């Protein structure tokens, strides 16, 4: 294989699918507005009630979940660190941003800076743990740290800031493009852009030399160490990137949801991330986006049809996935890529009788 | 009549093709030595016989039965004893428990007690000690003794002399010679001098293939073969 210097153009060409996806996502609210609601294009901009507005809300939730799951995939899927405290990464962002805006009445940029600092600090906290413990013990310590955070955040001692069991409510959007109630379409575009940015950034990170080391750490850390990489710094870097990304997801969550409940700090929310990347495919990055969409839609429709029993069905689906589809949608799709290509070729030769099969 | 026969056995560990065609014939009542360099696949051969790393193709016959694909405990219970390398005794268990756990039927150990302590008198003194407190040589003896507790017709012994002091090697060789009157032995041994003094037959494994076999007395004089396939193996003896 010859190495070409990637020019922007060639990069864009390689990402045609992504660009098409973005175009589709931008067009999506308008399409729904015209086809389903029978309203005009202006209805989207004017933030009228209807399916378009509702589905944008659902899509925003998917984008936020995707950002969150992306960061977990980097930690667990790519680098192989079994962290059970990932929900804390998300919740710290959500709560910090909310409290900074509401209680301290900060400018939103300042609040974001505080969130960034908090995110980096907590990554360092997990990093300190990494120095001492590995494997299952790391999973337990991270679970422990996150549980402490979860317990503290819903305790009555912090009622005036975090709102105890009910959660943080009454955070007002600081600028118009973060206002999900009045400017839904703008917020939709913002979350989508951020998700796509994170996704592209993650792909680049994984293709970079550091990304290769992340993979090496998952496959065989001792070998990476012997090759002269101080794996600790790489792991810390992973934690910082993931923490900042997840916190960004948390910030968006605070903007989108009327109430930030303590649930987003619990083990259940880490399991959500796990489930999403399992559905999508562990370690595939793209799988986080696919998984988030499938998970949220599945949850939404199951809840609609089965009510309380939907959670049970999701649990069953999870078990079946773990047993029978361990590589997830994207993983399995990629594994079958060769076969599929063969099938397409056969179809093409069938459809164009003039060509002879070349082999 | 051979007690154990391997035919063209191929074994994979994960995606690695470790055994690429091993055929062995172990006559009943004899000692057969498996020779070869480090990493040639000798230990994997033993584990494949026991089904610990199952063969992907080829067959293993024991006492006329095809035992390929059976579960390990099933194979072992047919009368195959295993002495793993690195003296894998149970260090949390006492010496006595290490012997008792090998019983297939209650009273196996009581029946063989005199024979075992006759081979390894030291163990009798240490019977109450936990496995962690044994020295390397004592652990090796315990590992061999453990394989003798049930009535095993075949013993698979992996590197019995590894890391032992010369005096202890002598003692171990004596023990193996005496126990071979009761069982057939398939022995993996790096130390060629030890192997040549114990075994009647040899099989050489090179890169996962059994490439040569025959009577040990023929091999002893064949310096060229020894140097070519066993290399450093000859040097380390007493």
């Amino acid at each position, binding site marked *: 294989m010859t190495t070409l210097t990637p020019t922007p153009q060639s990069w864009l060409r390689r990402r045609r699918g992504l660009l098409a996806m973005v175009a589709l996502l931008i067009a999506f609210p308008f399409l729904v507005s015209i086809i389903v609601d029978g309203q005009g294009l202006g209805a989207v901009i004017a933030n009228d009630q209807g399916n378009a507005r509702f589905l944008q809300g659902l899509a925003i939730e998917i984008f936020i979940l995707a950002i969150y799951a992306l960061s977990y995939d980097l930690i667990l899927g790519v680098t192989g660190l079994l962290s059970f405290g990932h929900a804390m990464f998300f919740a710290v962002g959500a709560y910090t941003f909310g409290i900074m805006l509401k209680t301290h009445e900060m400018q939103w940029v300042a609040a974001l800076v505080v969130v960034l600092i908090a995110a980096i600090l907590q990554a360092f906290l997990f990093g300190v743990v990494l120095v001492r*413990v590995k494997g299952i013990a790391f999973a*337990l*310590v991270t679970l422990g740290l996150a549980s402490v955070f979860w317990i503290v955040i819903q305790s009555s001692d912090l009622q005036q800031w975090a709102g105890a069991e009910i959660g943080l409510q009454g955070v007002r959007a600081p600028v118009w493009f973060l206002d999900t109630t009045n400017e839904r379409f703008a917020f939709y575009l913002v979350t989508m852009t951020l998700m796509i940015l994170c996704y592209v950034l993650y792909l680049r990170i994984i293709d970079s030399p550091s990304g290769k080391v992340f993979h090496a750490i998952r496959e065989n850390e001792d070998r990476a160490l012997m090759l002269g990489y101080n794996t600790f710094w790489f792991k810390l870097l992973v934690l910082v990137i993931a923490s900042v990304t997840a916190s960004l997801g948390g910030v968006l969550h605070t903007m989108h949801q009327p109430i930030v409940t303590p649930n987003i700090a619990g083990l259940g929310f880490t399991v959500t991330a796990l489930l999403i990347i399992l559905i999508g495919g562990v370690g595939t990055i793209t799988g986080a986006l696919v998984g988030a969409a499938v998970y949220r839609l599945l949850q939404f429709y199951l809840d609609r049809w089965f009510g309380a029993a939907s959670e049970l069905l999701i649990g069953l689906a999870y078990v079946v996935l773990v*047993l029978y589809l361990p590589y997830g949608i994207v993983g399995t799709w990629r594994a079958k890529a060769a076969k599929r290509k063969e099938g397409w070729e056969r179809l093409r030769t069938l459809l164009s009788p003039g060509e002879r099969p070349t082999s | 009549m051979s007690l154990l026969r391997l035919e063209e056995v191929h074994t994979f560990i994960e995606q690695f093709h470790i055994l690429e065609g091993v055929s062995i014939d172990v006559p009943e009542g004899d000692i057969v030595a498996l020779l070869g360099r480090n990493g040639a696949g000798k230990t994997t051969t033993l584990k494949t016989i026991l089904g610990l790393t199952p063969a992907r193709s080829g067959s293993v016959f024991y006492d006329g039965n095809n035992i390929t694909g059976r579960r390990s405990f099933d194979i072992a219970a047919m009368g195959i004893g295993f002495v793993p390398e690195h003296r894998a005794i149970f260090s949390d*268990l006492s010496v006595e428990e290490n012997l008792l756990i090998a019983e297939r039927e209650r009273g196996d150990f009581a029946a063989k007690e005199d024979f075992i302590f006759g081979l390894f008198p030291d163990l009798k003194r240490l019977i109450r000690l936990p496995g962690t407190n044994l020295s390397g040589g004592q652990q090796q003896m315990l590992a061999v003794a453990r394989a003798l507790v049930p009535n095993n017709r075949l013993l698979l012994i992996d590197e019995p002399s590894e890391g032992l002091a010369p005096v202890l090697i002598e003692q171990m060789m004596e023990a193996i010679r005496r126990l071979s009157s009761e069982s057939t032995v398939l022995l993996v041994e790096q130390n060629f001098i030890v192997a040549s003094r114990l075994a009647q037959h040899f099989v050489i494994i090179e890169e996962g293939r059994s490439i040569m076999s025959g009577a040990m007395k023929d091999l002893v004089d064949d310096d060229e073969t020894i140097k070519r396939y066993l290399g450093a193996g000859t040097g380390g003896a007493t």
Partner: protein
Amino acid sequence: MTTDTKQPEKVSKQRQRADWLLENRARVSVLAALAFLFIVALAGLESKDWFPTIMQGLSVGALTFLVASGLSLIFGLMDVLSLAHGEIFMLGAYVGWTVYTRFDTTVDATVPLLLVIAPFTLMPLWQRMARWLRTLGRKWHFGIWILGLGVVYAAWYVIFAAGDADAIEGEVSGAGAGVTIIVSLLFVAAAYGLYRKWRSNDGSVESVKEAMSLTSWSLLALGGGAAITAMTKFPLVIWDAEDFAKSPSNFAVQVDLGTLAPLPADSFGWPALVAFVVLLLGGSLIALALSSLQTAIGDVAPLTRKHWTGFVAMVGLAIVLHLTKASLNEWVFGLSTTWRFFLAIAVATGLGFAVGAFIEVVLIRPLYDRPIYQLMITLGVGFILIELVREVWGRPEFTMARPAAFNGTGEGCPGQGLGGFFSGCSTVEVFGGRLRVYNEGFVVLVGALVLIGVTLLLKKTRIGMVIRAGVQDPEMVEALGINVRRVFTLVFAMGSGLAALGGVLAAPSIGLSSGMGATFLLGAIVALAIGGLTSFPGAAAGALLVGLLQQIIIRFGQTGINLPFLDEPFKPSPTVVPAAAILLMVVILLVLPSGLLGRSER
């Protein structure tokens, strides 16, 4: 490197001691620090305060230990950290509560369950049949797959139709029809996939294995479908949906108080005999499916009279129970609550055992070469169990009355001194402090008994020896001719049984909620991590530490802790108490990554 040089005994002993201290200096200093902290903490209290605090700590510690013990054995032996363990604890509590307060429901549920389980006594038969299935032609396999898929589709359709009827009118039904079409297409696609599989099944070892796996799952679907369909014909009076839906919490209160009269059981929709036969059939299919899921079947034991006796006994028991239901219920409700409590303990523990065995065989076993996925699947199982409990018992929290033997009041109460524990009073005064006989007496006693029992089992019996050896090197144990997988199943089942026992014990003292499992699992994991993950004594010590620490913090939370830089005493609210134990775990793991009693390297 080992050398066999012998040193004079005396010198080596002294050196050993010095080495030991040096090696374990971190461990020793942690223990010393802990002891110091406890003494300081307790010195601040009067005797009438600290004694009950310690006993309450022991009580919580005992419950935590019951969860942690199984967790520790399972993790030690199989390297599976079962995250479903807390939910088995919860299941134990709910089942125990049902047996205790609503025995009639228990009988109603036992009859079909017995019938489903009865065929499992004939395991050799199913194993032989599974082996025969393997030799069957492809067409038969394909037929079974399609049948299984059909059952799943039918189940989906029935549930969906029911769900759709409740949905908001108009809006969803259109979408509902669309979804029905989509899902139906999915099932057609699945059938096509099966057809492809059938075509590719060329009789090679791999393809037969895959075909058998699909066949087993189809059989499981068939059996499960049959069993569930027939089971709905057995009226379970407590879940009278109408009554329950009206006011769940009111319902729970009435049940707790015992003022809700048992409803008369409905008559069968179809002949009882048919239901019985369908249940037996379902059970047989499930047993067959499970035995054909095993990849390799060794020698099949001959089917002896013992198996048949067991089968006939179970079926007979089911029939007798069904016929004598009314009088049996009357008799049990006439019993003292103490007896009913012990019955609840036995049933819940047994059920926990069975559920554990089932989970290990069906879900954990196929994943031994993918450890992370084992962890994930236990997480999923825990999730399912919580939702199952919510589905069956609803969301309200229940309380459970203490059995009569621990609930006496009136004359001569509270009891005095240690003898007071046996006076039948609900409370007792020891060293000036007031204790509850059930919480601080009985629970602690059972915890201690289990500790002694399991320790004896580990140290004195052959199976214990095998477990200890297996913790270290399961492969070698297998090479000795011992079926390690069976030991795995047994240990998993035993651990689950102990957790369920913990659940029943906890119910009268802390009540029932669907969150109780998570709380205790967290406590148990903390205990395990503190004690050293694979060490059984470590789990006990850790559980004790967790219990004591929590109770001491609660105690101080009431009076307030004087922290150096605060003007007012710091009063943590009770909700933050678990955080203290977790912080302790984090600190201990950071100082001693392998815990207090764990081995440093495995």
